């Protein structure tokens, strides 16, 4: 999926972000917090931001990509407006998390890890969020739903449409 990142539109947020980079710049291991903050502000890591981190921290972009691609939390394309995360921890798995992923693919036509072409939906399987008592669990835009069965999915998504 292609996305347009418009640096002009983003100036205010960007200034704040660069100020933050200048604060953490001299701490050892600043790449991780820099990436984490970008992910928090934008929901993903835009290419332009990687260049800015490289410039501000005085390191090469390859080093930043080396760190960013290692950790599953960092994404390089935006999430959908309705961001669906399915917990794929063991407890959720033995209680049918896979059926939920299949049902989502049937409903939305996108696979685990994809964002729909219109940018409306994204699905990802996430690591155990530690709410195993409610397995299987899904998160929609940060709200947690427990004891979900494939039948409930359409109902849950209706709230966000």
């Amino acid at each position, binding site marked *: 999926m292609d996305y347009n990142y418009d640096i002009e539109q983003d100036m205010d947020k960007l200034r704040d972000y660069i100020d933050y980079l200048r604060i953490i710049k001299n701490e050892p291991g*600043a790449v*991780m*917090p820099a990436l984490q903050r970008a992910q928090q502000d934008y929901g993903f890591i835009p290419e332009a931001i990687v260049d800015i981190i490289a410039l501000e921290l005085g390191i090469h972009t390859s080093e930043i990509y080396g760190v960013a691609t290692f*950790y599953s939390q*960092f994404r390089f394309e935006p999430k959908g407006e309705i961001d669906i995360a399915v917990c794929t921890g063991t407890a959720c798995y033995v209680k049918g998390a896979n059926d939920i992923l299949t*049902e989502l693919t049937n409903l939305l036509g996108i696979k685990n890890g994809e964002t729909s072409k219109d940018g409306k939906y994204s699905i990802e399987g996430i690591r155990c969020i530690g709410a195993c008592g*409610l397995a299987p669990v899904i998160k929609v835009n940060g709200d947690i739903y*427990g004891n979900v069965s494939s039948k409930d999915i359409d109902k849950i998504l209706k709230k966000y449409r």
Partner: protein
Amino acid sequence: MKKEILICGGTGCTSSKSLELLDEMKKLIVEYGLEEKCSAHITGCLGFCEKGPIVKIFPKDTFYTKVQPEDAREIIETDIIKDELVNRLLYKLPGTEEEIPSQDDIPFYKKQLRIALRNCGIINPEVIEEYIGYGGYLALGKCLEEYSREEVIDIIKDSGLRGRGGGGFPTGLKWEFTKNSESDEKYVICNADEGDPGAFMDRSILEGDPHSVIEAMAIAAYVIGAKQGYVYIRAEYPLAIERLGKAIEQAREIGILGDNILGTDFSFNLGMKFGAGAFVCGEETALINSVEGQRGEPNPKPPFPSTSGLYGKPTLINNVETYANIPVIISKGAEWFNSVGTEKSKGTKVFALAGKVNNIGLVEVPMGTTLREILYDIGGGIQKGREFKAVQTGGPSGGCITAEDLDTPIDYDSLVAKGSMMGSGGMIVMDEDNCMVDIAKFYLEFTLDESCGKCTPCRIGNKRLYEILCKISDGKATEEDLDNLEDLSNIIKDTSLCALGQSAPNPVLSTIKSFRKEYEEHVLNHKCPAKICTSLLEYKITDDCIGCTKCAKICPAKCITGAVREVHVIDNTKCIKCGACFNGCPVHAIVKE
């Protein structure tokens, strides 16, 4: 006597609206003018997630389950004002439906002994005074004023405490090694990167009792001679991050963290570093690389972190649950602690009970408790009266334990002897509907995904192992594949760089050992007894079909035909086995075979 309404604020209960319930309670207290008579606030996880949201009322210790915001008014009117029980919200004993009003009488809690979780569900984790009120920070004071550093190490050694992260290394020894390393700078780290899928005890401790971890880290820093500590915590735990952050802030304000703690010349600062979703970062050398802001890849050991860790300085790393035990050991003494447990495993262990068991939640039991006691007495048996098949302990690094080992006392060594390991304490219960090949495949897929790729055996070996398992579940494997599976597993175990790779084949080896027949069924007869492996299944429509055409409409492969009000037929040559028809049939007329 003022009544206190405690509402569980763990992740499980907050996900089922416990915070809305708290707001409602607070509103009603004002509405009824009860501010003098009672107060409502959150506490940490009570562990009985299955019955959440949980509300406890002190001083009577009344225990209400599955309380929704709309139940708040009844609790206020009946329990607080009239001082009578709200019977419909009490815990009911399965089978007899007998109502049990107080927590201590509920079977789930009867066999438990809460040491690491001692304050969870009792104190408000966001108020430092409550922790202090329960004897918090006394142990730190004792260490700074009464004990020398050697004396503290002796107490920890005598207590017999072993690492609760899963490896079980004696904690006192680790502290001693780090203390004896000469250096101008040292670090203390708390490993809160609980990546093991199905374990959530560290999260609950950080959410329910963050100060006990801070106190233990301060004690550790004093003992080894460190001035700076870090908690490395998973970004997936927003609530734990928030509460730990608040706790660090409060400790700083009252002078428990910072310079010249409690008027001594000891100074200690604590910061948080966030993990970004890499299971391997639970391995200590990988964790250190990650804290330094690099890729979280492990290094060969030695040198161990106790001689060369963070920025090349001696570093002490312990897991959250290990730290949570420290303050009590200092306060109550080594003898008190080592009187609990087995000969070589002292104290208690917190297990996260999940999967197909009735009472899902966190349980803390003395080491040496049998699996049967945990599953049946505490866990209330298998859901829907199904047949118990196996329990996986130790997550992706562990193995499965079967019915014949139900009476084995559980400790570090007995689990290793059974081909599993303690691990972080996740316990996933499986029944007859779970396929063991599929479970092994699930764990391997996880490890494969999480392998950092630094060493070849783990990067490539596990990939080949996974491919063989896929062949088995697709019904394309031969007997030779089964032998290869075992050979390859043993090679990976012997040659991988870190514990992730060394333990990755454990689920495969242990399921093959215990469920060889099930593997053979897949390989020789191309059948999956548990009806999980989709390639070996066929969907069929029985005569119960009412001909509503729903399945034909939702079938993405358009392979279901039939006239209205007549029995439909699936063309199995075109079926992609997505299960949409199976889930969508209103009369359950579709079966897997």
